Every structure is written in C-alpha cells, then in structure tokens.
C-alpha cells in the first residue's frame, strides 16, 4: 500500500502540516492540546507510530518543546505545534534551541490574544513574539502560509531550513489557514526534497561541535553516534564548554547570526502580483493575503495600478523585496493589512525609511479583513 504518485485530497491547513511533516521525514512529535492547532497533534498521533516514529503528549508546552529538542539531539526530526498561550510557554526553550543550535520545527496556529484572548478567532498577533519572544539576541526563521497547499510546502521548508541551519524554525499560521479546507494535490513522497543536517565525518577526537565553518553551520552529531560532546544553554566555546572570554563570546554569538545572514536569499521568500507598475502595493501574509489578492484584482479590472506583495517569510524580514519594488520608482504607498494593531506595519516603516508612504489597515476584533475593506482603503491611496 505504498502511496504512489501525487495524491488529490480535501484537507485542512492543519492536516496539510501533518502531511508535510510526514513527507519530509519527521519522526518525533511532542505536544499539548490547544485549539486551533490540535488537529496537527491528532493527525500525527495516528500516523507517526506507523512510520516507526514517536508521538508523545506531554504535560505542558514547555515539556513538549524540551522533548523535541532532546529527540533532535538524538538524531530525530522533531516538531511541536501550539497556539498563543502554549507558544508563550515555549519561549525560553526557543532561545535554548537557537544557542545550542538544535533543529526543531514549532508550528504556532495563531488565535486572538493576549492571554487566553479570543479562543479561537483568527488573529495575527504573534508576529513580533516569534521574533523577540525569547530573551537575548538570537537569530530566528519564521515562515507563514496563505493556503492549504502552502501549509504543506512551508512545513517541508521549515524542516529543511531547520536541518540546514541548525536552528529552530517557526511556522506561523493563522486560524483561518489552519482550519479551512481546500482541494490540494500533494506531491508523491519521493518528490519532496529533504535536507538532512550535516553529520560529522571526522574522527571523534577531532570533532568540535560549535566550530567555525565556511557556512557558519557546524556538523551535528547525534547522541549515541560516538561523538561525546557537551550541549549547554550557557554561552560556549567551540567545544561547547561554557566560556566567559570576550573573544569566544563574540565569535560564538556572531556566528549564529552570520549563518542565517548567509542564507537570506533562500530563506526570505515573497510573492509579488501586479507590482511592476503599481502605485499602491498591499503588503499582506497568511489568510489576509487572500483578501488582498482579490482586492488588487478588482482594482486592476477598474484600471487602477494596485499590486500585492505577499510575505511568505516573516523573519528574517524580507527587506530585499521592498528594495526591489521601491527601485522601480512607481510605488507611492504601501498598505499593510494584518489582523493585529500593526506589527508588520512598523517593520515596513523601518525598511521603507520614508521613501514612500506607508499605511495600515488592521483588525483585531476576531474577524477577517474582507476584500471590500482592502479595496476601499486602496482607492484612497490611488
């Protein structure tokens, strides 16, 4: 009964995450139930054991991410999924994963916050938390998706980037994408590109688990492979031992950033529609980008020069796309549409630096932003 070829399915976004995880070789999931992410746990609870993997329901979200990081250190491709309150609990360990350079995928299906908030109305209020939720300077990769198929693709990509860069990757979905159903054609298993972390090939006595390399990413041995090394959340030297020496601190921490910066081109994904001659460009991500696309198409039919910049990567912030659009010289204003009080809006202000107008259209009442609202706002700036 080996699945052959591509498959056409009617799936929820959360179910597509399950399919993506299995397709890319996830073998470990630990999580705690929370709406609107629970279907991911339920799907993997049924499916992971059948592929020889492990599903574990932990006592809380802290334990869930801890178990994932432990499993990853033992060589597994590990994932957890949660929503706002659980994501808040995971923050300390996200920083641990960054500094100890442990691959793991964390899916956050956003619901309205703060605190228990609006269970479980849609929201995009966790954008800044994914960037700065854990304490201290650290690099992070955050992907998002606007459709069920893209939820599949981004889950695959999240694992692959996580393995390649030895860094936790967050997949930030909103409740709409998590719960809506769409017909999708999923690729055959073998057609999904898989990236595995680089394992050390040198003899164990030469292995330095946190050494400088050309890519900035050191090879990663699994516990039990014969490379006995030390893992810690303390700032450490190239051997993983705690250090207080200024040169080692700076070298170690800077390498964490350098390894991600080298990959900006493949990490920072955006999609543009009708931006070539656009005077007003809508900036949107997640489910809001679907409304934005419809609004832009409507205005184009009316002969208005509107465009869409859809963000697929939120962090590192895809600055290059804004430079590209600004470089064309036609854009007079950006309109940032999001279900929060303007988190990406402030980033756009930061990267545009006064070279065009930047406006926002936001909702934080648990309701979607409609195409009509976006079209109306766009008309004001065209």
């Amino acid at each position, binding site marked *: 009964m080996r699945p052959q070829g591509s498959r056409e399915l009617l799936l929820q976004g959360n179910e597509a995450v399950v399919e993506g995880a299995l397709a890319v070789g996830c073998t470990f999931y630990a999580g705690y139930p929370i709406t609107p992410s629970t279907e991911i746990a339920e799907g993997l609870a049924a499916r992971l054991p059948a592929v020889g993997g492990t599903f574990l329901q932990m006592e*809380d979200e802290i334990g869930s991410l801890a178990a994932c990081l432990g499993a990853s250190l033992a060589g597994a491709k590990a994932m957890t999924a949660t929503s706002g309150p659980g994501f808040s609990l995971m923050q300390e360990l996200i920083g641990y994963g960054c500094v100890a350079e442990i691959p793991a995928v964390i899916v956050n299906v956003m619901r309205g916050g703060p605190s228990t908030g609006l269970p479980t109305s849609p929201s995009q209020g966790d954008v800044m938390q994914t960037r700065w939720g854990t304490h201290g300077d650290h690099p992070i990769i955050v992907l998002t998706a606007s459709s069920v198929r893209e939820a599949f693709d981004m889950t695959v990509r999240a694992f692959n980037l996580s393995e390649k860069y030895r860094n936790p990757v967050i997949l930030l979905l909103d409740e709409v994408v998590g719960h809506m159903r769409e017909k999708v054609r999923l690729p055959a298993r073998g057609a999904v590109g898989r990236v595995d972390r680089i394992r050390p090939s040198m003899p164990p006595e030469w292995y330095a688990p946190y050494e400088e390399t050309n890519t900035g990413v050191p090879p990663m041995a699994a516990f039990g492979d014969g490379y006995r090394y030390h893992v*810690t959340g303390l700032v450490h030297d190239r051997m993983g031992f705690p250090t207080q020496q200024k040169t080692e601190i700076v070298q170690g921490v800077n390498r964490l950033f350098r390894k991600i910066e080298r990959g900006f081109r493949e990490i920072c994904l955006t999609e543009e529609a009708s931006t070539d001659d656009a005077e007003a460009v809508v900036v949107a991500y997640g489910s809001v980008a679907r409304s934005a696309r419809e609004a832009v198409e409507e205005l184009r039919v009316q002969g208005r020069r509107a465009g869409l910049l859809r963000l697929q990567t939120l962090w590192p912030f895809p600055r290059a796309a804004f430079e590209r659009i600004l470089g064309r010289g036609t854009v007079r204003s950006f309109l940032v549409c999001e279900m929060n009080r303007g988190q990406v809006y402030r980033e756009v202000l930061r990267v545009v630096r006064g070279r065009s107008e930047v406006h926002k259209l936001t909702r934080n009442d648990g309701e979607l932003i409609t195409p009509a609202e976006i079209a109306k706002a766009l008309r004001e700036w065209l």
Partner: protein
Amino acid sequence: MERSNRQIIQKYLRHNKKFPHIWCPGCGNGVVLGCLLRAIDRIGWIKDDVVLVSGIGCSSRAPVYVDFNTLHTVHGRALAFATGVKLARPHLHVVTLMGDGDSVGIGGNHFVHACRRNIDMTAVIINNQIYGMTGGQVSPATPQGALSTTTVYGNLDQPFDISRLAEAAGATFVARSTTYHVKELEKVLGQAFRHVGFSVVEVVAGCPTTYGRRNKLGGPVEMMRWQKEKAVSVKKAREMAPEELAGRIVTGVLVDRDAPEYTREYEKIREAARAAQPEPTVEEDKVDRTGAEP
C-alpha cells in the same frame, strides 16, 4: 575488575575541560558524581551510550566535566529533554542529574509525569535543601523553620519528601541515601541504573556555604556527621514508630517493583499503528536527494 579512583578519573573526566570545577569546599556534589561514575563503571556501560542530562543549579553543572554525551538544559526541564532523547533512541542509557529546586520546584510537573510514564531512565536528585547557586534561597525541600535569604524569619512551608512524592507519582524504583553513606549510595545508584523503568535516587547532601552557615549547622564535617546520625535504614525504620522517625533520614531502597516499561510498550503501539494504516517506514521511504531544495 574494580578500578581505582585515579583510573575512574582518567576514564570518565574530560581531559579537555578546564578545571577546577565550580563547587565550594565541603559541597556534596563531587561525592555524588564519584559514586555515579563508579556505579556506571561497575555496570560497564559504554561511554558512547550514556547521556547525562541536567537542569540548572550547582549540581546540574556536573555533566560538563564528564566524558559522556552531556546535556545541560534549562531550569527544571531536564526530565522532559531526557524523555525526548530516550524515546528517540531507546538503546541509550539516560541519566538525569538535578537538584531539589530543579526537580521538584520549577520542574515538579515534569518530575511527577516522568514518574508515572515509567520510561527506562534514572533521575538522581541531589537534595541540599536550598537554592545554592543563587546564594541560599528557600527551596521546596527546605525544612520548616529554617533560615534562608528569602525566609529571613523562618520557613513556613512544609517541605516535599521527594522520595515519597516519587513513589506516589508511580516511580517503579525509589532509593534514598546521603553523601556520607558513600558505599550505600554507589550501590543504590547501580541498582537504579539496572532497574528497567523509571528510577529515582534522592541523595541528601549538605550545602555548608549557603545553608549550613546561616542555620548554624557547622561546617562540612558537622553537616556530614548530621547525615550519619540522622540516617536510619529502611529495615530499621520499619520497626520504628512514626514519632521516632520524625526528623530522621530513611535510607536504602524504598520502592522496587516491576511494571511495563514505556519504550518497550511503545513498540506495541507502532505495531498496532502499522496494522491499522500501512505507510512506508522512514527507512523504506527512500528519497532521491539530488536537486533537493530546502
């Protein structure tokens, strides 16, 4: 063949780690680490297969000195990390080393759940009744009335009996010893490591620097003497009245029972899942990685 302490040091301590260690004179952590290494050596575990996991605190600094796979995690979560390691690679020998605050304070939830799951790993808890690394604050194991920097007028809280907590939560092996009873400690650690299932060893230790001085318990020698005088074996304790046992430290193996072990039971879950929905296993699902993009 029994190795001398010098041989144990040469075999198990990291040669490339800068010593000295961070522990104060009179600390019990080194005693426990020595017993742990001798017990492992006696069993004959291969170093590549041993994972030593810890949380945060003085005792949790131990792994960095030892030539195993070592994992110094965040405060309170050592057992949750250990759970992931063990489930992902069940053939590894996973030992978790924590203090009293780490294991039953901030990590109390993970501790009781680890006890109930009966995963084949060992939790060694060094109970010095105080938060030592931060300078002597009250811990969940500090006796009532004791002084600390945050119970300046005496501790109101009732302390946890860590071993009884472990037993009530379902641990299938529980033992207690002290840093004075070195031979017994080494022996119960060996029993815990051999036990199939979740095992807990509580080690009563002294912190002369932050607890002994403030509570006028004397120096390291007097605190060791206190352990010697207060200790009573499980066997003897059975014949004593509860009022006689008040303030005593019952040492020895408190619980030792058989129960289905988690990672072995999980194999049955995998078989049931395979029967219910055949999918290619990760190994069978060969993938052409050429041209793979992340």
